[in-house]
């Protein structure tokens, strides 16, 4: 089972497609979750996911806006898609029929 941050990273990379790389994934996660994401967490999670065979990474071409430095490009592999789908289904199933307002106000029977 994926961790929450691992799922966010795979989802961001899948959404970005061919434009998935470190900074873009970081911005995507920050934009979606409205939370700060650290480079350290991002790169160590990328390594972990790559070791699990869920993503593949490679060094892209250097660009001007990055001061002539290369990007670490990311692509989600079939195993990653499978794991993310399983995570999403588990969360959806757990959430299905749960009334959060009722839980919050304590009126749930």
């Amino acid at each position, binding site marked *: 089972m994926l961790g929450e941050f691992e799922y966010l990273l795979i989802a961001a990379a899948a959404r970005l497609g061919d434009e998935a790389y*470190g900074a873009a994934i*970081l911005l995507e996660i920050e934009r979606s979750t409205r939370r700060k994401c650290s480079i350290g967490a991002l790169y160590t999670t990328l390594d972990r996911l790559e070791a699990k065979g869920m993503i593949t990474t490679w060094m892209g071409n250097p660009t001007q806006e990055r001061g002539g430095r290369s990007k670490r490009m990311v692509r989600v592999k079939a195993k990653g898609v499978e794991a993310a789908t399983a995570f999403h289904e588990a969360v959806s199933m757990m959430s299905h029929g749960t009334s959060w307002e009722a839980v919050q106000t304590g009126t749930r029977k």
Partner: protein
Amino acid sequence: MRNLWTRSTDALSRSLDPNEREAVFGDFAELGMTDQRAMRSVLGLVLRRQLRLWKQWEPWFALVAIIVPVCPLLAALSTELGQGIFPKAWMWLHHGIFYETGVSPAALLVAFFIQAIALITWSWTSTFALGSLSRRTSWVNGTLFFVMCLTLGVHRWLFSFGLLWSTPWAWLLLMVKFLVVLIPAYCGLRQSAKSLNLRIRWMVPLTAWTVTMGVLAFWTRGWGQAAIDNWSHGSSALTLLQLAQRADVWEAMVSHLLTAAVLTGPILYMLAINTFLHRQSRIRRG
């Protein structure tokens, strides 16, 4: 002039892979990150990387098998060497007389140089083995190695010489430590960063050299005590039988053997690993 944050970020990022460093610095440029936040990000990444590396056995083995046993010995022997030359050099330069130890000045000089060369060899081989065991954690283990060698035993010296600490002579001990332990240790770490393993044709003479210097160092360390024994027993030296009957001689011998075993341990380990790798590659080549 580059500010402190940029310099710190640069220094920290050196422990990252070149590709990762490039990608991370590119991300910083693209995100327009402030120097301070970039430094925090790199620090976080480096710490996470180190924590992951420390989940493996190699850095712990280097810590337990090299740093813990070797550093106190190197610190003690270098302090002893520095303390040994201090009164002699002081007397000679300030009063023009030789501090009488019962050993001739030439023999003392030979003993000093042999012990210094032995310490240089042990320091170099220890940090070379340290870096070879786990290159990416070598800066953590290396820092620990330097701090331990520099600080252990210094407090005793500080107290024993009291006010002399304020004189330039007082720095002699630190100078000796730097010359015979810290600088060779740094060179050993640098060498391990360049190539993890020495070729077998270098490893065998290096091991032989380390063992020989160890034997010579412990032999020459005993000259002072031998001179006192000769003096207290008249002109005749103790016979081997008389020596063998003395408990303190056995204790000293066991202590010397253990010390020599610990200090030559790293190079013997490297020799064993290199021999194994060499044989493996020969088998593979058929």
